[in-house]
């Protein structure tokens, strides 16, 4: 099996409210998978189903080739959006407790905790109480507890909310390390730009339905529409702008007379990039010529609009 997780037609209702409507997705092994969508789209419900906190009304979830079962809990690491720790419990004791709940033996948990505490340089916190720690410190412990039992699948719900930039980077690096060791990772977030650069695959959820999924690279390829950001250096930019405006769809144009710098965005017909470039270089010095690739956010908005237009 090459997929760590497959969901088939998962539906979940809370009373009359539909939280997930016939959602299917495939998460390949050893990938970083983005589960994206605005608040209330159904991301957390889906994650809770994967963690067997709630159960689908219909549909099935397959984990590593087997129908999802209670013992799979030990193979999944989950850092929920709403995360906390017992305030009056000591750090070490608490980490041991949570690790043992995941099925590790005490000695095994002790050994692994020591490794991680040293790695994140928090070894001297062992006997302190959570209430004495800062929020960032507590987040490191939450991270350790999530990954300690070496799960095959790691799920992070809104992973970087509340992290300060330094801690966020440390955690990000550790996540990438884990991926390199073979772990599959799900990021769930409504802040799509925050994980864009990390994800290989994404699913977009909107109003309990999947509206788009696939390899991010492919999606972007599909959604880019031959828009280019162009920067030229030439005399008489205004005249030139008028000239090309007749033939092409131009926007965001601006001419700086002192620096003789013309900037604009152009929409080209497909397969016409080469001749357009040739034309530009004959008329001016090309400072830059970049294809504008839509962000996931843009893609999301476009998809939703397209969908609404269909209905």
């Amino acid at each position, binding site marked *: 099996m090459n997929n760590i997780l497959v969901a088939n037609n998962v539906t979940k209702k809370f009373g009359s409210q539909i939280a997930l409507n016939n959602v299917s997705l495939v998460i390949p092994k050893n990938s970083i998978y983005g589960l994206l969508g605005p608040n209330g789209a159904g991301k957390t419900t889906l994650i809770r189903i994967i963690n067997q*906190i709630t159960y689908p009304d219909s549909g099935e979830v397959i984990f590593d080739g087997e129908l999802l079962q209670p013992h799979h809990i030990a193979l999944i690491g*989950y850092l929920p959006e*709403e995360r906390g*720790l*017992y305030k009056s419990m000591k750090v070490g004791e608490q980490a041991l*407790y949570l690790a*043992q*709940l995941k099925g590790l033996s005490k000695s095994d948990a002790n050994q692994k905790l020591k490794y991680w505490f040293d790695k994140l340089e928090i070894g001297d916190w062992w006997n302190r109480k959570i209430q004495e720690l800062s929020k960032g410190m507590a987040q490191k412990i939450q991270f350790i507890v999530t990954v300690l039992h070496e799960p095959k699948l790691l799920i992070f719900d809104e992973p970087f909310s509340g992290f300060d930039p330094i801690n966020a980077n440390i955690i990000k690096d550790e996540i990438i390390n884990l991926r390199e060791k073979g772990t599959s990772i799900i990021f769930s977030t409504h802040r799509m730009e925050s994980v864009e650069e990390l994800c290989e695959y994404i699913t977009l959820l909107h109003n309990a339905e999947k509206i788009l999924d696939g390899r991010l690279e492919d999606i972007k390829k599909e959604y880019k529409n031959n828009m280019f950001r162009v920067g030229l250096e030439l005399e008489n930019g205004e005249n030139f702008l008028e000239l090309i405006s007749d033939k092409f769809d131009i926007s965001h144009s601006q001419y700086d007379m002192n620096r003789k710098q013309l900037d604009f965005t152009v929409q080209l017909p497909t397969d016409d990039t080469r001749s357009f470039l040739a034309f530009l270089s004959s008329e001016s010095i090309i400072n830059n010529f970049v294809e504008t690739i839509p962000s996931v956010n843009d893609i999301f908005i476009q998809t939703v609009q397209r969908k609404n237009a269909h209905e």
Partner: protein
Amino acid sequence: MPMNKLSLIIKREYLAKVRNKSFVIMTFLSPILMVGMIVLIAYLTKVNDNQKRIIAVFNESDYFSTDFNTTERISYIFLKDLSLQAAKDSTLGLGFSGLLHIPNRNDLEEVAQNAFFYSKEAPSNVVLDPLEDIFEERLRQRKLIDIGVSTEDFTTINDKFEINIATFSGEQNLKGINEMKAFIGGGFGYLIMMFIIIYGGFVMRSVIEEKTSRIIEVIISSVKPFQLMLGKIIGTSLAGITQFAIWIISASLLLFGIFLIFGIDLTGLSDPSAIASNPMSSISPLPPTASTMQLYAIEFLQIPWFMLISLFLVYFILGYLIYSSIYAAIGAAVDNETDTQQFIFPIILPLMLAIYVGFFSVFSNPNGPIAVGFSLFPLTSPIVMLMRLPGGIGEGGVPLWQVILSIVFLIVTFIGIVWLAAKIYRVGILMYGKKPTYKELYKWLKY
């Protein structure tokens, strides 16, 4: 081997409770507070009644001349040769509790009919009872003389008498022992109520804490919500039982100490049947060798303690499990403690009812229909049944079938309530920022 998850949770909850400072303080302080309260109440009652009253007696008749003798509570001052008005004025002026006026008439009955007690405020029974006794006594004596009983005869027939009581199986009972037994049962029932309220509250707060600290979702991604709820309830109840054990052990030590101090012969108690099983020979008078104190001690030790304490544990555990799972569901349904009020009241209601029914109905008639009904109804049975149990099971006590039936009811209710509570709990722990209504909770049952 990794530890079983449920036992891990129980262990954590138990340690979290027992290590808590307030637990340690509660364990050692509350018995002291309890004893202190009893002493204080006794003292205050005594102070309240201790005031010695002075009553002026203005006796114009030929009767009652020797009857008003100063007692611990009341002293009498005799007024003579005054007008009634002057007597009233001087009584008021001297600040006495009241004035008893006995007019001069020919006949005792007429005198009694026309006697008046004057006082500033309506007099209490403490004042009136002795006065009425004196009149009654005098009138009775007079009537007896009328029918031919001499004064000497009258004093001889006026023996005090207390009836000896025994059960059909021949065990001799002491007067007041039923009250003592009911009181012991009441104590156990009261303990259960207090524990349900206190420890149920602990469970509820612990659930709220997990919700507000947001650790709940971390944990239920590893264990089932039901396991967590059960572990929490069991762990907390073990802490409660620890507290009980400490109290029972120290109370027994204390009792043993009291027996030693009062010099009650404990060696004779090892075979109490020697005294109690042969009632016919010892019904009257009381055996001279056994002081009343000693008999009470024997009775006290004859209360089926082992049965009582084991059944106490059974009722405590089942009652506690039922109530604390409701408490857990409430904790899960709310975001903070202030929202719990509307849900807690309906829980405390049956507990209070049980206590009141117990004290008013079970004490006077432990086998009456009300007592039986409430000791079978599962939400009140842990308390009410325990109040009935010190009388024993079987003849003279609670029929065995009632005990069994009430335990069966409790177990069935326990399963049902835990099932419902677990459903509410499962949904509630992941709900934030909603102030739930009963309607909402009903919807959760169907999620």
